[in-house]
């Protein structure tokens, strides 16, 4: 009301902390978190390309950081985030065509998680095998 004497603290709509965590719900949150991670991870990609465009010493600096234990861990995490977000995106396409809302939704979520881990390991095994 325009003439209300004071603002009433109305109840807010229920938010995340109200609900018992569910697997599909956590997967939805992880999809968003991986998206945000990939967003900032794109800076690493640009650093790589700019270093290659700049000079041998700039590229050596990038290679040293990327090849360090922390660098490799970040790149491994980036790979997993990319594959998790990609498989989550496929799940979104399935939903867009009005499938996957039944009991199979949990199976789809589990397949997304398992697939992201397996594919990440496979990509790194291939990469390390080819590069020694």
């Amino acid at each position, binding site marked *: 009301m325009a003439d209300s004497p004071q603002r009433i603290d109305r109840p807010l709509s229920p938010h995340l902390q109200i609900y018992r965590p569910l697997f599909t719900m956590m997967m939805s949150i992880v999809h*968003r978190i991986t*998206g*945000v991670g*990939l*967003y900032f991870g*794109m*800076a690493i*990609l*640009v650093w790589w*390309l*700019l270093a*290659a*465009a700049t000079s*041998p010493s700039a*590229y*050596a600096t990038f290679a040293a950081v990327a090849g360090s234990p922390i660098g490799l861990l970040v790149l491994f995490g980036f*790979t997993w985030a*990319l594959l998790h977000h*990609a498989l989550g*995106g*496929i799940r*979104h*396409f399935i939903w*867009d065509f009005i499938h996957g809302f039944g009991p199979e939704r949990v199976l789809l979520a589990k397949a997304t998680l398992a697939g992201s881990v397996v594919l990440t390991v496979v*990509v790194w095994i*291939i*990469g390390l095998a*080819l*590069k*020694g």
Partner: protein
Amino acid sequence: MSTPHSGPAPARTTMRTPLGRVRGLGAAKSGTEHFFTQRLTGAANLLLSIAFIIIVISVAGQSYAAARATLGHPLVAVIILLTLLSVTTHMRIGMQVVIEDYVHTEGLKVLLIVANTFFSIAVALAGAFAVLKISLGG
């Protein structure tokens, strides 16, 4: 409306102009572009990411000269340019949704959305410039 002069004019049931009805957007002035673009770039990202992972694996561990030769190959350069275009479009929309979901202070929200646009375009342009410089020589 197929026989416009055969009877009394149909009663107007809406205040919207014919052009407004065709556009179908309403007061928000925009509709499903973000939704559709996010699907379009998402599908492109699926294909481009596969190619991109192969490129990264092949360049990883290479010498500076070999890495530049790979990145400068026309096919590789075009794939990276397409990836930059599709990914930065996708990530800009995605981050805008996140900002709009969690930041409720109007000024800060607008500031972050502008910063999001700046960052996304900077990533796209810097990456594209680097690839073009390597590829075109110099």
